[in-house]
């Protein structure tokens, strides 16, 4: 709902948009929330526009190039543009999954922080099969969306398209499953809390 209303920080919006690209059920839920937005707009009241507003718009429209016949051609059996990254992510990672600028963060785990507004951060994580991400809790909300592979933690198993929502009460140790490396998109609005000392000192350097 917050995504539909447009009040989420960019980092969280990116996770939601990516998830919706992979999940039809949530796309339907989003469109239902948008419909509430439409109803709210109908009832938003009216604020008079400048007397020449319509004329101005019509003038702008006349300046647009003629549209020509509309084509309803469907893209031939949609081939995904990237095997791992859905479209919303491609705006943030130029060149797709092979061009991600991975930085090692230890234990074989790699990350790439994506450029978004400062109120929350979002990163791609690459966790080799079988590797454990150190036990950590959360100061804020963390959304983790699996793009490839899968991970397990104390609570559940998360496969492609699944989102884990962790809040300040959650402490977990995610482990990547055997098979292809687990690639996730993770957004947080506050730094993570690591329980062990070593990750803690490394934290400011890794910006997690």
């Amino acid at each position: 709902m917050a995504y539909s209303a447009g009040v989420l920080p960019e980092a969280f919006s990116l996770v939601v948009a990516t998830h919706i690209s992979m999940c039809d059920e949530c796309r339907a839920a989003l469109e239902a929330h948008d419909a509430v937005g439409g109803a709210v707009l109908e009832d938003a009241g009216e604020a008079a526009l400048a007397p020449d507003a319509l004329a101005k718009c019509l003038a702008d429209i006349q300046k647009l190039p003629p549209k020509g016949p509309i084509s309803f051609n469907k893209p031939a059996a949609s081939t995904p543009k990237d095997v791992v990254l859905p479209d919303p992510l491609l705006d943030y990672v130029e060149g797709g999954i092979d061009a991600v600028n991975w930085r090692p963060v230890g234990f074989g785990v790699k990350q790439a922080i994506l450029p978004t507004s400062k109120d929350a951060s979002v990163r791609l994580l690459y966790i080799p099969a079988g590797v454990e991400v150190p036990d950590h809790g959360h100061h804020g909300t963390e959304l983790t969306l699996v793009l490839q592979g899968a991970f397990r933690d104390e609570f559940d198993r998360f496969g492609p398209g699944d989102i884990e929502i962790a809040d300040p009460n959650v402490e977990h140790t995610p482990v990547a499953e055997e098979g292809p490396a687990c690639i996730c998109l993770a957004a947080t609005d506050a730094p993570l809390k690591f329980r062990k000392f070593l990750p803690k000192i490394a934290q400011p350097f890794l910006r997690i």
Partner: protein
Amino acid sequence: MSIATKPRADQSIDEDWAALMVAIRDHEDTQAFAALFAHFAPRVKAFLLKSGANETLAEDCAQEVLTTVWRKSHLFDPSRATVATWIFTIARNRKIDLLRKERRPEPEDLPWGPEPEPDADDVIALEQERKKMQSALIQLPDKQRILIERCYFGDLSHSEIAAETGLPLGTIKSRIRLGLERLRREMDADKE
């Protein structure tokens, strides 16, 4: 503020906006556009003012949103969204661009676009849902309706609403959920 906040019945609720959109799309019909403009531009402007835009920004942005409606008319799919919903999404995205100066990532488009001749039953069914939704929203208890509306145009997060209304966060979230649930039940009940 001079904007009426109380929802009211409107005869224009019965206007066939989707047909006007098709006229704009297929025939570049400026009269259809003028009718759409007269109804939606003041609502978009009110929505933007309530979202914290100032008068000049709301005016310019409302005009831009309506120009976008013309420009993107070929993307409107009456079997997936009503005109009000579609314009809401355009206005919301423009608002984020302008007020927050950040991007709003959009989901991947479905592999199929609008049909040249959308299934008439789908369009009618959607339109009926819209009317039910509209009256369900008006019939919500004021407390729930106001909170839902503020979420959409107040540009407020739940915790900001808490700070402004003095209601505890838990109460707000449950009221919003209750309100949305009632909306949905109202719509389901009418289906039977």
